[in-house]
């Protein structure tokens, strides 16, 4: 059987299951004896085993099988949950994750057998014959499943199985059938029973549907196609279809599909409809009573196996090919470009304005809709951190607790994929450098448990993620000494710097304050990488710290990446875009109001001293300055402000951000480019690197 086409489904589902496993294990570590959790873990292991076996991943199957053995003993109360046992289970989880990673990369599970883990699992089982207990289970299963069928009365059983006979049609469907009969097509009712061992039922059903669609036209299915796709069906489903093929052909085609247990096909005739229908309904009622009896044992059977096959998933996800989304995105971009083009047309016609407004409304809506599809909750990234902190706490011999909030905050998919590593860095830092040892904490009058906070929330057009700890905070003097020591700053500079400036030195390359290089962090390749990465995503990072109280890293990320509101400005004859969300206000400043502090031009704006940045100089525009007053755009970067001197304002515009391409990656000051309505390219200023 060729299963490669299900590889992606397998990977996605396996990931979900592993995540559940992770959560359940972490939960189990906290609460001593929780039967539900053991059941949950058992279920996940069992499902994974089944999935892996279907896909032919033998080593995964072996591992999950042994896990299952141990878990089943726990369930039976024969083994108690110990720290050691949990460690082994965590190792299993890691091993399974490795298998999945390997599968993602190469499509095969690799050569690693993880024999040590399996040995440990078997050691835990020691004294009990794992195989025997497992064999106990199997026959009882098959007995259960056979019984009800054997007991059922022959005649009624037929009806029960031919479930399509119990279904009624609505007007539309009746019409379709009658019309087909008039045109001398055959109408069939088909009930298909899928094998119990089938793991990817919806995928199997999909194949069946495809086969059926090749043979005729499907007019009705029960349950609905949507429900079948969502796996909301037991083991069987019924379809009605119009076809010119013979009954035997259907039986032959359907029986040739793997994992199809039984197929029932009946030709259907609709005439004198009313009577026929009553008769059918009558029969159906009889059938239903019988069915009710049958359902019971089959449910018990499912419980016996500890597997709830049709448990609805809490997190309903849509899997969309990112390339398709990108394509949609590009179309929207085009639309916006057209809109901008329309705007530049010189026309006072009322109609024209209405059209533009309409177009604007569409593009805005379309943009929102597309953006929403791309949005993913940060939970996707956050959910691996409880485990990270747990492992770090063990490694560092610290008592750590992670508090998370705002997991539901949504971010663009591309940002989500990139933000993981920087956050891991920051959390490691918080656990390793941030938190003191328990004894130290006690001495300084804190509780022994160190808290690490991870919060996400939306703030206007930004998403803010904060990583905070209640540890010792950053020792400014230590940072200063270190910076002086390795020559990052001179004595004079050090004296002139504010505490905040010094703390920000941490973001300079090769700067680590950890006295000892540990396994966890402290190799000096930390915060600068974090900063670079976040800036590459169009965000920024700042740090707030208080000695003895802890520190907080605040990451600000743009909600959307591709389309932003921007202020277009003019410098000589060149046009530049400044992202609107960074702009605070725009001021007219007289040249005579410019003051100098340490050779830096500043203005005093309502009590705030704001440095002035001459864009023309930085951007290499040569000209003479003669003007008496200048237009200054005041921008924010975190708490910092700066004023950009521009020659003129063009206006606010929605712009589509494009990159400058691979050949121009190292251009500082420029964040990207955009295409204006007239087809010209304008560059987007990178406020982060300018301020």
């Amino acid at each position, binding site marked *: 059987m060729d299963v490669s086409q299900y590889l992606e489904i397998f990977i996605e589902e396996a990931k979900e299951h592993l995540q559940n496993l992770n959560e359940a294990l972490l939960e189990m570590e906290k609460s001593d004896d929780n039967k539900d959790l053991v059941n949950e873990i058992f279920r996940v292991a069992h499902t994974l085993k089944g999935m892996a076996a279907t896909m032919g991943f033998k080593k995964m199957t072996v591992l999950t099988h042994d896990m299952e053995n141990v878990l089943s003993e726990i369930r039976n109360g024969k083994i108690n949950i110990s720290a050691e046992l949990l460690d082994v289970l965590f190792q299993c989880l890691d091993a399974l994750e490795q298998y999945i990673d390997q599968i993602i990369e190469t499509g095969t599970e690799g050569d690693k057998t993880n024999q040590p883990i399996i040995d440990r699992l078997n050691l835990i089982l020691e004294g009990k014959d794992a195989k025997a207990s497992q064999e106990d289970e199997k026959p009882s299963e098959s007995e259960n499943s056979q019984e009800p069928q054997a007991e059922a009365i022959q005649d009624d059983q037929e009806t029960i199985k031919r479930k399509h006979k119990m279904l009624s049609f609505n007007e539309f469907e009746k019409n379709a059938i009658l019309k087909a009969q008039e045109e001398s097509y055959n109408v069939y009712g088909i009930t298909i029973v899928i094998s119990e061992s089938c793991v990817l039922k919806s995928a199997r059903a999909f194949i069946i549907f495809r086969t059926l669609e090749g043979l005729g036209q499907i007019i009705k299915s029960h349950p609905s196609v949507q429900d079948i796709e969502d796996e909301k069906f037991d083991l069987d489903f019924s379809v009605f279809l119009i076809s010119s093929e013979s009954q035997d052909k259907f039986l032959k085609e359907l029986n040739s599909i793997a994992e199809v247990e039984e197929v029932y096909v009946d030709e259907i005739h609709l005439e004198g409809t009313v009577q026929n229908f009553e008769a059918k309904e009558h029969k159906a009622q009889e059938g239903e009573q019988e069915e009710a009896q049958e359902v019971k044992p089959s449910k018990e059977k499912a419980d016996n196996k500890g597997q709830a096959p049709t448990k609805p998933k809490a997190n309903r996800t849509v899997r969309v090919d990112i390339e398709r989304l990108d394509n949609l995105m*590009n179309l929207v*971009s*085009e639309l916006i*470009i057209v809109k901008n083009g329309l705007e530049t047309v010189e026309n006072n016609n009322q109609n024209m304005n209405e059209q533009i407004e309409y177009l604007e409304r569409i593009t805005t809506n379309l943009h929102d809709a597309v953006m929403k599809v791309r949005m993913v909750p940060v939970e996707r990234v956050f959910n691996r951190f409880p485990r990270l902190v747990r492992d770090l706490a063990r490694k560092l011999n610290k008592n750590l607790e992670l508090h998370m909030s705002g997991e539901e905050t949504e971010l663009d998919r591309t940002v989500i994929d990139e933000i993981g590593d920087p956050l891991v860095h920051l959390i490691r830092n918080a656990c390793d450098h941030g938190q003191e040892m328990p004894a130290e904490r006690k001495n300084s009058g804190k509780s022994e448990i160190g808290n690490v906070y991870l919060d996400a929330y939306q703030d206007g057009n930004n998403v803010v993620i904060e990583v905070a700890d209640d540890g010792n905070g950053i020792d400014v003097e230590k940072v200063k000494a270190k910076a002086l020591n390795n020559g990052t700053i001179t004595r004079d500079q050090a004296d002139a710097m504010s505490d905040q400036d010094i703390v920000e030195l941490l973001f300079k390359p090769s700067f680590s304050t950890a006295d000892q290089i540990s396994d966890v962090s402290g190799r000096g390749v930390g915060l600068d990488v974090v900063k670079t990465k976040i800036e590459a995503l169009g965000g920024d990072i700042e740090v707030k710290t208080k000695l003895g109280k802890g520190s907080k890293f605040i990451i600000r990320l743009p909600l959307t990446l591709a389309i932003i509101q921007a202020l277009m400005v003019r410098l000589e004859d*060149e046009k530049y875009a400044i992202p609107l969300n960074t702009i605070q206000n725009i001021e007219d400043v007289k040249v005579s109001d410019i003051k100098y502090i340490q050779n830096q031009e500043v203005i005093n704006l309502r009590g705030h001293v704001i440095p002035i940045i001459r864009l023309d100089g*930085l*951007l*290499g*525009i040569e000209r003479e300055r003669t003007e008496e007053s200048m237009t200054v755009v005041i921008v924010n970067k975190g708490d910092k402000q700066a004023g950009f001197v521009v020659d003129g304002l063009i206006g606010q515009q929605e712009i589509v951000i*494009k*990159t*400058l*391409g*691979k*050949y*121009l990656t190292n*251009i*500082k*000051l*420029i964040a990207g*480019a955009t*295409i204006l309505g007239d*087809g*010209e*390219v*304008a*560059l987007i200023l990178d406020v982060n690197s300018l301020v």
Partner: protein
Amino acid sequence: METKQMKNEDIKQFIVVKFGHEQYGINIQIVQNIVRMPNITRVPNAPAYIKGVINLRGEIIPVMSVRVKFELDEDQFTHATRIIIVKVDGNAIGLIVDEVLEVIQLSEAQIEKIVSDADDEKSKYVYAVGKVGEELVTLLNVGSIIGVEE
């Protein structure tokens, strides 16, 4: 790409362009498009040979002055000036040329490889000389001109 060409009876096609009086050949396989000079948006702090970026049907494409890279005189933009859009490793870049002349076909026999001088950076930009009758066409190694190995 190369091997596919070989099968085609070892015939390679080149676009012949002109810088000053000299003729140069660019392998047609990597050429995406030839466009007239559009408005170029200058990119501050870019290398001198990058003249800026242009909009080619909604795509931002950097434009490079081959003349500056070859340390010839600055480009004189005339009605004959064209930008040849080439794509190497999936990245498009435009090359400014004085004039586009024709497309020629060269068999393996007509192409004479030249050994590049390791000390001379510029010699890497050329990988062979093509002979068309009496005329000689210098075949450009576009990959190394734009900084990617072809």
